[in-house]
């Protein structure tokens, strides 16, 4: 007698499992997926870890180039000190730096006010100002202050705001707009297209003619009209952008719905007496899901581009809130003097768009293998 090996019953893989396996084999898509997740996490969590607020203005650091070493640079200390001392309306006699502190000897024609040291504290470069000593006649004094070490890895913009925190905040907004407006477009498109596809006949005819007419209007006309109507409101922008992009989705879903309805398995189900609700649940929705998911991943980059485009025209997100489009638009105006203002946001935007496109292509190959 020999033992028969106990084998587990053969488990069939679902179509979704198949698709996932195909997607996992696609290196570009998987890398893009991880990149996109990392990008989202960095944009959502990052601003809490950057020591600068995206709205804080550092008057001493207007348009400072990106650098991995700490600011202020040695040559910047004197300028910042002179700025602060000028506000005290006194003169610098001499100054020296010892480790992290500067010692400044100032003189004045009038007796010095001890409260003057606050001007050092107010500067972005110094901290912990102290009055070390005052001369007997009160006309000269020694002040000291710590040099505040700051890092601007991405540099700062025209008003002295940290570009790293702005780029990350912008990423949050751009990604959020992409996702939300994408969902709006998909929901409108699916509902409209599915209704047209299932009602068929006259209703379908009328509904699709409406889509045709909307198509023939210049696309930008639409967007501008929506912006004109809704004003420059942030949330309404989502809706406006989403409301413009549903046309393709509606066409795709309608076509798909029409073709599914004519499939033999649907006719078979009808012949078996399955109610239309059951047919919709069992056959129509799962078959619609593939194209909808594919279209949605390809829609998100379109929305991000559209939002950036509107921001570029000054119609999108308004200051001090920011998006990649706003930053790139500001960068494009300053390429002569501060090219990092263009390069960092542009890199973030373009790499995200690449990732989204690769994921979209990967999903299409995975979910719809006959189109390969």
């Amino acid at each position, binding site marked *: 007698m020999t033992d028969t090996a106990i084998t587990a019953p053969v488990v069939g893989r679902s179509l979704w499992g198949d698709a996932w396996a195909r997607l996992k084999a696609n290196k570009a898509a998987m890398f893009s997926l991880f990149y996109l997740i990392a990008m989202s996490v960095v944009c959502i969590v990052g601003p809490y870890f950057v020591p600068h607020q995206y709205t804080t203005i550092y008057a001493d650091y207007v348009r400072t180039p990106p650098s991995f070493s700490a600011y202020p640079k040695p040559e910047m200390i004197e300028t910042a000190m002179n700025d602060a001392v000028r506000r005290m309306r006194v003169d610098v006699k001499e100054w020296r730096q010892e480790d992290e502190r500067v010692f400044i000897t100032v003189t004045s024609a009038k007796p010095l006010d001890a409260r003057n040291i606050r001007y050092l504290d107010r500067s972005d470069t110094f901290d912990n100002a102290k009055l070390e000593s005052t001369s007997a006649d009160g006309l000269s004094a020694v002040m000291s202050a710590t040099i505040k070490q700051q890092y601007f890895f991405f540099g700062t913009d025209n008003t002295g705001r940290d570009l790293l925190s702005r780029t990350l905040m912008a990423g949050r907004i751009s990604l959020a707009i992409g996702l939300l407006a994408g969902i709006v477009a998909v929901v409108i498109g699916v509902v409209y297209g599915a209704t047209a596809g299932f009602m068929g006949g006259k209703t379908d005819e009328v509904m699709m003619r409406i889509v045709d007419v909307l198509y023939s209007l*210049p696309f*930008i006309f639409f967007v501008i009209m929506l912006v004109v109507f809704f004003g420059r409101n942030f949330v309404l922008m989502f809706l406006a952008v989403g409301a413009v992009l549903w046309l393709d989705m509606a066409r795709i879903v309608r076509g798909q719905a029409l073709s599914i309805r004519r499939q033999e398995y649907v006719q078979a189900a009808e012949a078996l007496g399955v109610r239309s609700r059951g047919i919709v649940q069992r056959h129509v929705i799962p078959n619609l899901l593939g194209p909808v998911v594919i279209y949605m991943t390809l829609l998100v980059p379109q929305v991000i*581009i559209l939002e950036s485009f509107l921001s570029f025209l000054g119609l999108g997100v308004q200051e001090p809130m920011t998006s990649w489009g706003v930053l790139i638009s500001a960068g494009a105006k300053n390429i002569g003097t501060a090219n990092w203002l263009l390069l960092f946001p542009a890199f973030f935007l373009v790499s995200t768009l690449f990732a989204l496109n690769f994921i979209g292509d990967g999903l299409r190959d995975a979910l719809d293998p006959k189109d390969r």
Partner: protein
Amino acid sequence: MFVYVIRRLLTAIPTLFVIVTLAFFLIRIAPGGPFNQERGLSPEIKANLEAQFGLGDPLWLQYVNYLKNLLHGNFGPSYNLPDFTVTELFAKGLPISIQLGFSALALALFIGGILGIVAALNQNKAGDYSVIALATAGSTIPTFVIAPVIQLLFGLTWKLLPIGGWGDGALINKIGPILTLSLPQIAIVARLMRGSMIESLRSNHIRTARALGLSDWSVVVKHALRGAVLPIVSYAGPAAAALLTGSIIVETIFAIPGVGRYFVDAALNRDYTLVMGTVVVIALFTIAFNLIVDILYAFFDPRVRYD
């Protein structure tokens, strides 16, 4: 064929009518008017201005008047640029936009076409992959990133091109805008050409041609290309309409006095006549190029006949 063209032109009339009507009422529903400036005009002056342009009339009368003028080829005066009629504005800007758009399209069809053929002939080899990479990059990177990067590289770093400006149409001023306009188009054309060429090369008549011992050049250029250009022809129609009517982004960044900005500025200033003029011009270009595409189709594909 002649009858077909006439019929197509006649069916364009109701389309144009619907577009004009829709645009007319849409822009009128929008809050605000052409003379609502931040430094408000005194009510008397505003009333006078509105009377002069007939803006006080009931909306339906304004609509009828606009249609009447339009039929006489009169687009009306621009409200925000009061020294110009809309026709004059287009006479000034449209040639500039057309020049740039046409050059960009020609460049895209030529370079994109060659790249697509090269990729198709080297399918799944290094040449193919580099064309695909280029096409992916070209269609992913948005224009408002390409344009300033071109300015940065060619204008500021290498000092080969001016950063912007029209310079009375000097060739060197056109290179940057044309390059920016054509890069995304090159990408799309190359991708389309690659796909349709691969398909065309697999078809039976190509196998026959090869079996007859025709040279590669003759097979590709004389026989395969003819079938492969059809998708590009149908893409190029709408693309031409869009390119020739100006690009807002490119004209803004390179400071080109074309018609690309008219639409946005006019809509924001409620310059009703200029908005309508732009809509009509874009619609006319779209209709015209769709017709040209259909005619070219018959030329490239003898199976298509319009009777």
